[in-house]
């Protein structure tokens, strides 16, 4: 029973990591890609960690997996925040379909929305 749960958890994790990677390729600009990279990959890695924990139980390996999962949950948003902020300040262009950019408006800078049809 538990090993079946572990397998399901591992597979859910792998599928979400795959979707995250697909999102990195398909989405048009840095900021949208960051969304795919943070959300899907977080759940994917959490699923894999949970699967490892379920398979190995309460031994050094399983506990390390759980601690790693908590660490990832706390640090992934921070690093994505730092990357997105850095890109905005460095003036990396937003996708041409972007509707609104209040950050640059508030700073009084030139619009960094990509031009196009």
């Amino acid at each position, binding site marked *: 029973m538990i090993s079946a749960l572990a397998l399901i958890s591992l597979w859910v994790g792998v599928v*979400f990591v795959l*979707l*995250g990677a*697909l*999102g990195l390729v*398909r*989405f*048009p*600009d840095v*900021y*949208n890609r*960051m*969304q*795919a990279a*943070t*959300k*899907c990959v*977080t*759940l994917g890695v959490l699923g894999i960690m949970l699967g490892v924990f379920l398979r190995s139980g309460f*031994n*050094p390996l399983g*506990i*390390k997996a759980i*601690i790693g999962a908590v660490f990832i949950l*706390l640090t992934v*948003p*921070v690093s*994505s*925040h730092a990357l*997105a*902020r850095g890109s*905005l300040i460095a003036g990396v262009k*937003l*996708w041409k*379909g*972007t*509707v*609104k*950019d*209040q*950050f*640059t408006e*508030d700073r009084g800078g030139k619009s960094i929305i990509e031009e196009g049809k």
Partner: protein
Amino acid sequence: MSRRIALFIAGLIIWLLLSWTLNYQEIIIGAVIALISAGMFGGYLPLEAKKLLNPVRWFWLLVYIPVFIWQCLKANVDVALRVLSPGLNLKPGIVKIKTSLKTEIARVFLANSITMTPGTLTVEIQDDTLYIHWIELRSTDPEEMAKMIKGPFEFFLARIFD
């Protein structure tokens, strides 16, 4: 001082979990390392011991964790569907919202929680203003937007950290 003690205890617990043995040698080494790191970094801990020992806050934290996990799952399915849909369904924009949270640590957790909810990514915090990259702009009214983005988080975080 109380912050250093809190950090020492937390560090020792994490060490013991990582080594997963109650051998006295491990405990001594862990205590020494936790003592050194608590001495070096204890001053940076953004929580006060008075708040740490309040059981009501811990209760709200326990309520908050399932809410957060549910939002996180929703976010993942939402982005996964977008990735798989042929037209991508994108209408991104960067908007700003205000928060009523007072302490730094509460704002940090709000920003992290927002990053984990469907389609939103915190880009910048300036005092009580958060700039959010939203993958699909569903509203332009500031109050409605703030409600949609913050979801249930502000209510819980105000009770946990403020």
